[in-house]
């Protein structure tokens, strides 16, 4: 008797990550991202411009408020470029987290009618905003030229930090998106969460401002490591705090594993509860 292609039965295992299914549906991930990008720019006037305006405007406001009024130090660099280097990964992260956290509920119709590994939804949510890096980066290069600074070899380390930002956004949104399916008010907490997180990360101020006794606690925030990493890679600041970055990376791994298990468990009841 031939073995069945698959067996449907109540899932009693603690954790079951169906990697073959994810691989089989990899093209769907591409289409989900493709669709999201297309839809974003359809019938818009500014189109790609939005990818630049947001970090640019934030930089202007931060420079005025934190750089001028509050006179926060910026590690010896001009404040605008200090802020913008951090805003590059930050804009990506806030967009990725916001999108991916509501990704499952946004596709209620798909979840109720079609089978595909639901994990693809938050993954597509964190992949789509990567596109915005390109124009924002362009602006950054213009700024560097303006300030007469040259990038160094450390620029090639950027993808690592992008990856950490992506994984952080993904792991948190695995928790949030799964919870949001059952408890709809979770989505209202996200803008608030992002705001708090902004101030918990060294975006508007340098990490050197954080007192030593708080450093360890502070470095539990993976985005601290990412922002530091971006500043080091782009602006070649001396001695990045590798200890901070190492802690960040391990926190991400822990969050990710936990998130995958949680999402996987909840996934089975999505169609019933959504």
């Amino acid at each position, binding site marked *: 008797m031939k073995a*069945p292609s698959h067996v449907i039965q*109540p899932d009693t295992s603690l954790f079951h990550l169906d990697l073959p299914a994810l691989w089989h549906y990899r093209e769907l991930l591409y289409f989900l991202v493709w*669709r999201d990008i297309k839809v974003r720019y359809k019938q818009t006037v500014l189109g790609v411009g939005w990818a630049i305006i947001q970090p640019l405007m934030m930089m202007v406001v931060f420079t005025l408020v934190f750089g001028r009024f509050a006179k926060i130090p910026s590690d010896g660099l001009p404040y605008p470029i200090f802020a913008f280097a951090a805003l590059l990964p930050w804009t990506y992260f806030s967009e990725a987290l916001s999108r991916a956290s509501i990704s499952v509920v946004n596709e209620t119709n798909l979840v109720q009618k079609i089978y595909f590994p639901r994990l693809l939804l938050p993954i597509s949510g964190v992949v789509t905003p990567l596109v915005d890096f390109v124009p924002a980066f362009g602006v950054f290069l213009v700024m560097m030229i303006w300030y007469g600074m040259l990038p160094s070899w450390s620029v090639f380390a950027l993808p690592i930090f992008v990856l950490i930002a992506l994984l952080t956004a993904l792991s948190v949104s695995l928790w949030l998106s799964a919870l949001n399916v059952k*408890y709809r008010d979770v989505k209202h907490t996200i803008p608030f969460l992002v705001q708090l997180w902004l101030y918990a990360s060294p975006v508007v101020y340098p990490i050197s401002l954080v007192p030593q006794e708080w450093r360890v606690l502070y470095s539990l925030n993976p985005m601290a490591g990412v922002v530091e990493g971006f500043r080091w890679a782009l602006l070649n600041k001396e001695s990045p705090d590798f200890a901070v970055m190492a802690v960040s990376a391990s926190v991400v791994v822990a969050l990710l594993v936990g998130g995958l298990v949680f999402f996987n468990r909840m996934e089975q009841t999505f*169609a019933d509860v959504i």
Partner: protein
Amino acid sequence: MSDLAIRVEELSKRYTIRLPGSQHDTLRDTLADLGSRLFKRTWQPSGSTSERGHSKFDQFWALKDVSFEIKQGEVVGIIGRNGAGKSTLLKILSRITMPTEGRAEIHGRVGSLLEVGTGFHPDLTGRENIYFNGAILGMKGAEISRKFDEIVSFAEIDKFVDMPVKRYSSGMYVRLAFAVAAHLEPEILIVDEVLAVGDGLFQKKCLSKMQDVGQQGRTVLFVSHSMPAITRLCEHAILLDSGTVVKKGPSHDVVSTYLTAGLGTTAIREWTDPARAPGGEIARLRAVRVREQGGRIADTIDIREPVSVEMEYDVLKPGYMLMPYFQFYNEEGVVAFSAHDLDPNWRRRPRPVGRYVSRVQVPGNLLSEGTMFVGACLDTIDPVIVQFYLLDLVAFQVIEKQHGESARGDYAGKMGGIVRPLLNWTTQFIPDSHLETDASRAQADAEPQAPSVRS
């Protein structure tokens, strides 16, 4: 010996419904409720009756111990009332929701059509939606590109394929959605009542496509409320009621069970106790029966064959002329026709006391496909005194198999009408020399030739 496609063993699905008032959709409410319950416990110790002994949860089994086997290449219909569990079964087999107990074995790639147009985005063009919808249904990008032209021509939207879908008419939208899904080539196809959309022409297309799929040797699981569609497309059917399998077997058998169980009527109705027999002082009805050509009681009749309906009645008082008649009507209550007894032996002849059986024969190729209800009535003539007038007494299914000469001919789509008579057609052909030369001249203009010879 064909292999198994699907084997379902004791599949069960339980849903927990929280009673209204205790449902919490927000974290805020859940926490608030927790808080108030804690509060109540501290301030009102034992003896408080508010939540004690009152279950907040109600459970119901959408499916219970469902078991069946489907072999490769079979086209199987799933029927049942609303709420019987059909959609739940499809959802489980499509892996959208998990069973509570039991298991199902699937052999082959499954393609599910639970809804038409899932994933369509109004801002994207037809082209873009074809790609996305195809991808979400499980097709690879290369496969979609390969079938792209076919899909577009099936949907008949050739000129509009690059327009945003929100500008499409509802007909175009539905055609496109079905076109994409129709070009899925899974080994097992699961379809949920999607043929209920669109106009008549479109439904004809869908039906033919479904037939093609079945003929290609794919396994099809088809849920529908249309009994004609089920009997036409499926060899076998499974009847579900309240989550359990009531009957499985050849489709017209199962369909009959479904209809008769739901309606409370059968192809035979008898009153054995004379005191209960309906009627007046002159005549009382004892039985009504539907018989097929061979004389056996049948609740399913082939559309091409005659069907006879008889009423058995007692005449209690002599000397009256009687008029028995039947009324034939369809599922919607529209009367197809009524048949009045014209038997020359008894017409306008006073009847002696006794037991009579009056039978009418309806020729084949007259009735339309579907359920036919029959009412039996009897009046006296001169004066007219109604003895009984009973509708909804018996019912039978008129079904059409694919092959054979019926009024349908070669047409595969939906045919309306309360009756479907097989009528005579003639065609007259008149060769017309003027039309011929015009036609050949048009052809000569189109193709460059050597100078033609003037006639």
